[in-house]
């Protein structure tokens, strides 16, 4: 028999309850936990890992995690609506390939080639968005399909080639630092602008409220006038467009190749979920996600510096992901074991008495 305890823990919302003092409302959130963990790991690494306090650490940290950070922005919104996009890394490879082909084979000027790549990215998003939003197909299945499709096209177009030799002005621009010698690369500025734009879109606009509503209860969202299909289509196209930016970045920083960024989508999703977004939709925030991305990046960087082999990092991140998801449930369960602590109905679960709509647990699973 499933207990109501656990059902509720999963469905719980993070609308801050204003019955508590402000400080508590800030501290007792999932996002705070991620920020705190990030701070702890960072301080620990600075203190005890040789080389971590060097001037290059932050610089490389951003260079390396830029694609994940970019992709995590639209992914956050998509997961909040209860959908998922597994095809972002393949879109990245495909747009990178198109950038290379447009620049070297079609001899377009570099900026025109960038335009081609972005258009291709938007088209990829359009394909996903149309299938998910208008044909109402499950996004998991659709994007597993386009994951293979876009990757196959990228590998098909490029074959054995890897394209480099983009204009130095642009590749150098990537490596430049703010103010010439600070430890922040120059592209952190556009990255931050984009992150703020997504943050405003999600947290301060009607569109963003609609995103949450769809994830919480799409029926209710429709009744309040949210255009669900249009919202989803826009989100998937944003994902495609941003994936194109990530693809351009990757091509400039390394090369355009059919097999670049393989499996990156899993890292992006891991970072988003670690940042406190619920895979069931309806819950999560952009600052939390950014902290999640940085947390994974810092752990990676610190452990590598410490000479820890890659697979150990993989185990740690895997466990972290699992732990972050089950921790709330586990804790509620444990506190439920303490007699008299938390009174709750003893009756077996009954949909009628659950305050949430019946299929809330599976609300992400609607087709």
């Amino acid at each position, binding site marked *: 028999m499933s207990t109501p305890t656990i059902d509720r823990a999963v469905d719980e919302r993070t609308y801050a309850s204003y019955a508590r003092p402000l400080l508590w409302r800030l501290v007792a959130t999932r996002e705070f936990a991620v920020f705190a963990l990030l701070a702890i790991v960072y301080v620990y690494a600075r203190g005890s890992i040789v*080389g971590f306090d060097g001037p290059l650490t932050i610089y490389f940290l951003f260079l390396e995690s830029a694609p994940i950070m970019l992709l995590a922005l639209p992914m956050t919104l998509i997961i909040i609506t209860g959908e998922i996009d597994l095809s972002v890394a393949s879109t990245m490879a495909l747009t990178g390939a198109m950038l290379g082909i447009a620049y070297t084979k079609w001899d377009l000027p570099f900026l025109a080639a960038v335009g081609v790549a972005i258009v291709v990215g938007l088209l990829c998003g359009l394909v996903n968005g149309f299938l998910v939003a208008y044909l109402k197909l499950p996004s998991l299945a659709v994007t597993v399909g386009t994951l293979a499709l876009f990757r196959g096209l990228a590998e098909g177009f490029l074959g054995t080639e890897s394209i480099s030799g983009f204009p130095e002005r642009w590749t150098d621009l990537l490596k430049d630092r703010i103010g010439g010698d600070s430890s922040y690369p120059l592209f952190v500025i556009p990255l931050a602008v984009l992150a703020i734009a997504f943050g405003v879109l999600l947290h301060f606009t009607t569109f963003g409220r609609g995103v949450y509503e769809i994830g919480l209860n799409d029926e209710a969202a429709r009744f309040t006038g949210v255009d669900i299909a249009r919202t989803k289509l826009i989100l998937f196209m944003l994902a495609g467009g941003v994936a194109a930016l990530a693809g351009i970045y990757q091509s400039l920083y390394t090369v355009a190749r059919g097999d670049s960024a393989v499996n990156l989508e899993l890292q992006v999703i891991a970072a988003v979920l670690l940042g406190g977004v619920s895979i069931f939709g309806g819950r999560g925030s952009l600052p939390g996600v950014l902290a999640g991305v940085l947390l994974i990046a810092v752990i990676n960087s610190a452990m590598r510096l410490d000479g820890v082999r890659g697979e150990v990092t993989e185990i740690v991140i895997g466990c972290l992901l699992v732990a972050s998801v089950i921790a709330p449930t586990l804790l509620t369960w444990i506190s439920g074991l303490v007699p008299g602590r938390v009174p709750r109905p003893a009756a077996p679960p009954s949909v009628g008495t659950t305050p949430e709509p019946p299929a809330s647990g599976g609300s992400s699973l609607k087709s």
Partner: protein
Amino acid sequence: MKIKKRRLSALAVLALTASVALTACGSDDGGDDGDDGGSGGGGGGGSSSITMIPKSLGNPYFEASTAGSQRAAEEFGGQVDEVGPTGDAGPDSQVPFIQTATQQGVGALVVSANDPTALCDSIEQAQDVDIKVVTFDSDTECRDLFVSQADAQGIATKQIELIADQIGGAGDIAILSAAANATNQNEWIGLMEEDLEANYPDINLVDTVYGDDDDQKSFDETAALLRANPDLKGIVSPTTVGIAAAARYLSTSEFKGKVALTGLGAPSQMKTFIDDGTVTAFALWNPDDLGYLAAFAADALVKGDISGEEGDTFTAGDLGDYTVGADGVVVLGDPYVFDSSNIDEFDF
């Protein structure tokens, strides 16, 4: 109640994740590597700290080359640490390891590059902080020195010579390569094509397939190759993973003994197939020697004995003296042919 629950949940997340992360960070025994890395930087010092970055960890070939470089380090009194991507070998997978070595300020990097150009930005950043970069096995455009296993021409010629000999100088052959982007593979394949055209008019190269240095893919590609080309006489696989997978397929198929197989293989993996007659002869250099030479070259660069200019000479332990050739290339020697007469003498 709800509030309390939520607060506790958040704290639990914190506690759980923190404990996982911290124990993992603290527990591993790799801590001392960092210390060594930090102290040995710069040039001219008594000992060199070298970071070895193979294409991927867990490959017996690179296992041997790392062992060789560590043997060398003991002789010249330096330190070699091996790091690198596990599993997938995408073009960008080596970048983070180069960056980490840059942060640590090691003396030299010894890299087998997964892509000719993808690593250049990060390699240049390493060179900016005075780290010497030596490539071995597979080259990039921006290193100080390339330690080549044998010159590409010699490798290509040797393999074509072997296959031509085994199929009697005429018929269809195919190539089973590693990743489609592998620098060295594509260079050899190009040279093999030229050699075939110039010297073996009766041999047809009908197909080139890519096994990605993955057992299963190479195995399946071999099967597909034999099906798609029923008249195939021979297969050349210039990669250790590929030739072993192809040999394993052939040894259980009706083509055993009918389709010749040669290429570059590791004796320990190929012994079974030499013994059962699937393969008669194949070639390779000694990867242990290759790593040994690369480490000595890196050490010579760090100590300032050579600068990577053509004509520079240095001594590589018991391998003797080497001279830097054109374009900063040092060549190990000619590939070595293994067959039933000598295979028992090697164990890498």
